[in-house]
């Protein structure tokens, strides 16, 4: 069986190479690896943290960033009650209609409504933001290399530019942004929100909470997925044992 290991190594290699990050982006800054509750085989979302994160989103991020794939009803999943969700939804005015007179009407939001976007369209968003487009945050942790770690690092990555680096007008220095010049001014500052649950709103705390919230928003199925996955692997392992036993028995008298 001299050639067999070659092929086997090949099979492995195919999987491994494909897995590696095959995309370098110039001089890249190593992302700090933050421990989040949702990582790992049995990872789960920290409900309290995600709720605080939603508060940060609502009071800070939402003034520029939409989350148009999210509905208020989704918030039930991170532990808000039906009444709380209804109350949150009712704080926005939603355009609906046309009514019987052919007019569009404004009505208070309902749980089934999507998160209200801060701008009517991309052009309006650019016009209000010095021609920069604040991206939609619905799937942001899936849409950025580095995922949650990147978002977390980015929020904390502001600072003075190193000596010799000229930051362009209207841009801000950020260690982790590609090119290090980002249009978004530092969004969070110490004590910016007053958490309902009394947690102290440090910069680090807010960044962690909002990352928790955004990761949940991007992958609301994650807990269900991992739980099902564990069951699946256990089942398949047993089935594999049985299949191998049957194979051994069947081939017993040939070998």
């Amino acid at each position: 069986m001299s050639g067999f290991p070659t092929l086997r190594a090949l099979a492995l290699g195919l999987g491994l190479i494909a897995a590696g990050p095959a995309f370098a982006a110039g001089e890249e800054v190593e992302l700090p690896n933050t421990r989040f509750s949702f990582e790992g085989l049995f990872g789960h979302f920290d409900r309290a943290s995600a709720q605080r994160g939603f508060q940060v989103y609502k009071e800070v991020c939402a003034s520029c960033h939409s989350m148009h794939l999210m509905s208020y009803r989704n918030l039930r999943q991170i532990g808000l009650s039906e009444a709380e969700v209804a109350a949150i939804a009712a704080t926005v005015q939603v355009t609906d209609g046309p009514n019987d007179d052919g007019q569009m009407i404004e009505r208070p939001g309902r749980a089934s409504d999507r998160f209200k976007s801060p701008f009517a369209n991309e052009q309006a968003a650019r016009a209000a933001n010095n021609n920069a487009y604040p991206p939609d945050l619905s799937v942001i942790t899936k849409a950025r290399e580095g995922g949650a770690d990147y978002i977390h690092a980015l929020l904390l990555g502001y600072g003075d530019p190193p000596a010799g680096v000229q930051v362009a007008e209207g841009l801000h220095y950020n260690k982790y942004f590609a090119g290090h010049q980002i249009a978004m001014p530092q969004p969070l500052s110490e004590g910016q929100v007053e958490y309902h649950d009394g947690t102290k709103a440090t910069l680090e705390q807010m960044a962690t909470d909002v990352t928790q919230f955004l990761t949940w928003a991007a992958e609301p199925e994650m807990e269900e997925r991992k739980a099902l996955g564990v069951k699946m692997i256990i089942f398949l392992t047993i089935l594999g044992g049985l299949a191998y036993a049957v194979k051994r028995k069947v081939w017993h008298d040939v070998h």
Partner: protein
Amino acid sequence: MATGLHKSDFANPVIRWVDARLPVFTMMQKEYGTFPTPRNFNYLWNFGALAMVNLLIMIVTGIFLAMNYTAHTSMAFDSVERIMRDVNYGWLLRYAHANGASMFFIVVYIHIFRGLYYGSYKAPRELLWMIGVVIFLLMMATAFMGYVLPWGQMSFWGATVITNLFSAFPLVGESIVTWLWGGFSVDNPTLNRFFSLHYLMPFVIFGVVFLHVAALHITGSNNPLGIDPKGPQDTVPFHPYYTAKDSVGLVVYFIVFAVLVFFFPNMLGHADNYIPANPLVTPPHIVPEWYFLPFYAILRAVPDKLGGVLLMFGSIAILFVLPWLDTSPVRSMRFRPLARPFFAVWCVTFLVLLYCGGKPPEEPFVTIARVCTAYYFLYFLVILPLLGRLERPLPLPESIARPVLRGGGPLPAGAMGKPMEKA
């Protein structure tokens, strides 16, 4: 044959009634029951069956995804995310389909490499091999169009770049591209036709797979020794021997698949495809899906547009004539001491190309990709034809049963199938 009922041997009266009129049971029994199969397959021979199962998984998950997908540029991205969020188990269907494509290529690449190593393309299996290459091409087309459907940034720019390959052809190039697009850029008509074709192609593949298997059952399978079975002592009936062995491989395959789907569903994908398509902004790093990277590297290795396109298509087209390029009468490289290291280097070359294809087009990757591309073609066009003449193969065993049954054990119990008529 004269008309009249087929003479069926089944005991069950219902089965016999059907079988007499439509001998599907007899056929299944003959092709998958008692079918005489070389007794010495290793686990690499699982991969044909795995590919078949994988195709079925893709078709079934795809049909259910299509029930919730909207093929329109303004809604495609959101409809995919709706599948992920709101449709019951939609995330499972989509992740199984997306990672199923990767699994399909892993399985098929191993299947192809196995064929290359054991000389499965040689007489009398040339046509079987060529049909396989057709399947591979169809798979690539299907995968490419499927990747466009979520209408993310990579979808859009992948579609733009790949369709633009055809513009390399002189005179007709531009017209072909416009025709492919159904407009003046990749847009809604493009998305619509890709969806239509992406739905159609798997069934075409299924048909060609049927031919692939039909051809296989005429010539019979190759085996690790690469010699023909001489008689019943060299074969076992397909069932239960290889149904049991394939089942083991199938479960292992499912475990790998499940790990991907449930724990690393986006590992093989690209983050940029979660950004909705934007025709005005190209992402800084566009790369195709991993399974196209070797060919993408060959494309980029050539500084000339048309030359790159031709070489890329040539890298697959060359497989069609491989049965005639390899002049050695010995199939299995187990008995070809010289060919083996050359083949090993070729495999490494392929993997290095895969790696380079994912890197930005800058040094040293360009040079490495060029060297590897050169060797890729050299192996087929020069090394294999020459080796057949220069190499002294090791002595072939007399029969399949001989090396296994060292010491003259009893005849295998499962060797009572019909002796094979060999070409």
